[in-house]
């Protein structure tokens, strides 16, 4: 038995540990130079900052996860700085530097995490505009703020978290512009019963931001990010009035989107998640996909956060062990599933508190760049609908190249789906799903095939 785990974040590491505990030796592959995934990302070299400085309230969890991974290192085959760029029948193609090799596997656990969900605005390609996740990576991994005066914009829990982390680290945050209305935050009262510590922490971030003089605005409609060579300011509308603020950097995002390309290449069936407005691989409560021997866990299976990722990673590991005919601890499975169900309920609360800006798709102007790679405008999508009767994303891609560029739709896919569906007067799921194509990320030119297997 030779299971392959893609991703060494909370989900992948817990899956690996679970297999190791049953005497199975998995292959673990991650693009990053060290384990931890997005939230518990490690620095390239140590510096003066403590785990508490880096991970805040989650410092103990981060340290524990890094320790878990170090503890199983000699019982797994770990390939850091390695990208799985294709999956064929029970074989993964993985590239490290300039060498690619084929890695056969018996089972597959996908723990590929998520990236920011972004929506285009005028000025979103300017130097100084980064995603919320990117803003956080600059700070955590590189010890840098994205500018001298930073505005954070968008929706989702990361908005306040990253703003607070910036202020704590000594950066100047000019404003937090939340696109969701203050009234939506009332939903969090429901969450107080489900996950009191998480909700109270969120309230603390907001009150501390305000106490330090950071303007926090709700119900914001972004109009444009101002500047020619780089960011010079942000203009937005709020209760009918236009506002402008000078700044030299903007961190923004609208919650997260799952990295699902490998699940697609593995042949997994997808379902549309109406709450998250996204397609995700179909799975049962244990993480089994529609493909036998293929499991999925963590944010790559649907956004649920780091704690859920750990639980789901362990649960998927146990499912694999059980399906292989080995003994599993039933009581533990019960505990994991109950905890996961509780977090899922809380996710409903978060989605209502940070709703997607539904009016965006119809209000965004034709001349705004939709696709950063191929520089295709919003209007090109509407024209394809109007002139060529397009109503499906892959057809749109073939005709306009949206989603065909280097990022393979990671940055424009959600927005393209929303604009296409809105232009057709349909719900987002009716636009269909962008299909993944190998290589799922650009691989260096002149990569050498190496027929050696791991």
């Amino acid at each position, binding site marked *: 038995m030779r299971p392959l785990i893609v991703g060494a974040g909370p989900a992948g590491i817990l899956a690996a540990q679970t297999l190791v505990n049953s005497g199975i030796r998995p292959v673990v592959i991650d693009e990053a130079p060290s384990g931890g995934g997005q939230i518990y990302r490690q620095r390239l070299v140590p510096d003066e900052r403590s785990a508490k400085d880096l991970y805040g309230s989650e410092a103990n969890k981060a340290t524990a996860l890094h320790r878990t991974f170090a503890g199983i290192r000699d019982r797994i085959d770990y390939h850091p700085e390695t990208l799985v760029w294709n999956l064929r029948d029970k074989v993964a193609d993985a590239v490290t530097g300039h060498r690619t090799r084929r890695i056969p596997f018996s089972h597959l656990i996908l723990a590929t995490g998520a990236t*920011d969900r972004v929506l285009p605005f005028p000025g979103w390609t300017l130097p100084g505009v980064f995603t919320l996740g990117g*803003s956080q990576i600059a700070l955590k991994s590189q*010890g*840098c703020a994205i500018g001298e005066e930073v505005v954070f914009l968008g929706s989702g829990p990361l908005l306040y978290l990253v703003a607070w982390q910036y202020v704590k680290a000594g950066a100047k945050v000019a404003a937090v512009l939340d696109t969701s209305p203050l009234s939506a935050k009332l939903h969090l009262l429901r969450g107080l019963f489900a996950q009191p510590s998480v909700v109270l922490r969120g309230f603390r971030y907001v009150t501390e931001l305000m106490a330090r003089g950071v303007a926090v605005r709700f119900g914001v409609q972004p109009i444009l990010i101002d500047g020619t060579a780089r960011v010079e300011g942000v203009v937005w509308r709020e209760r009918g009035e236009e506002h402008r603020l000078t700044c030299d950097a903007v961190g923004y995002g609208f919650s997260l989107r799952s990295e699902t390309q490998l699940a697609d290449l593995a042949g997994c069936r997808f379902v549309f998640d109406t709450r998250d407005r996204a397609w995700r691989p179909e799975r049962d409560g244990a993480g089994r996909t529609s493909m036998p021997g293929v499991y999925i866990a963590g944010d790559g299976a649907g956004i649920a956060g780091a704690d859920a990722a750990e639980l789901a990673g362990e649960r998927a590991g146990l499912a694999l062990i059980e399906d292989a005919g080995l003994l599993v601890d039933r009581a533990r499975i019960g505990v994991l599933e109950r905890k996961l169900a509780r977090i899922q309920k809380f996710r409903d609360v978060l989605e209502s508190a940070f709703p997607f800006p539904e009016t965006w798709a119809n209000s965004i102007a034709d001349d705004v760049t939709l696709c950063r790679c191929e520089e295709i405008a919003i209007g090109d999508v509407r024209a394809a609908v109007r002139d060529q009767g397009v109503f499906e994303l892959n057809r749109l891609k073939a005709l306009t190249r949206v989603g065909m560029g280097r990022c393979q739709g990671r940055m424009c896919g959600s927005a393209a789906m929303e604009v296409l569906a809105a232009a057709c007067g349909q719900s987002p799921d009716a636009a269909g799903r962008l299909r993944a194509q190998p290589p799922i990320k650009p691989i260096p030119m002149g990569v050498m095939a190496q027929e050696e297997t791991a």
Partner: protein
Amino acid sequence: MALLRRLARQELPLVSFTLNGEACLGRAGDTVLTAILTQSDRLRLSDFSGGPRAGFCQMGACQDCWVLTTDGERIRACTTALEPGMNLRTVTEPRS
């Protein structure tokens, strides 16, 4: 002018490299993106309109941070560690 502002890691060893032929200094543990954007405000020009770009996601997803080395190799700045003696070039011509 720099885009990024260093708040920490200022005591780490200096790493020298060149950017468009000029001698520059970064810090151990920098990515190429950090090393460049603490000196300059762009990494490349976009392929078609030639608009300035300076990365976006910093996590290897958007592919908007590719730069060149003087021997013509393309590197993704946000996921490449800065190494002493690197000779880096920002991409200054569309569709290079």
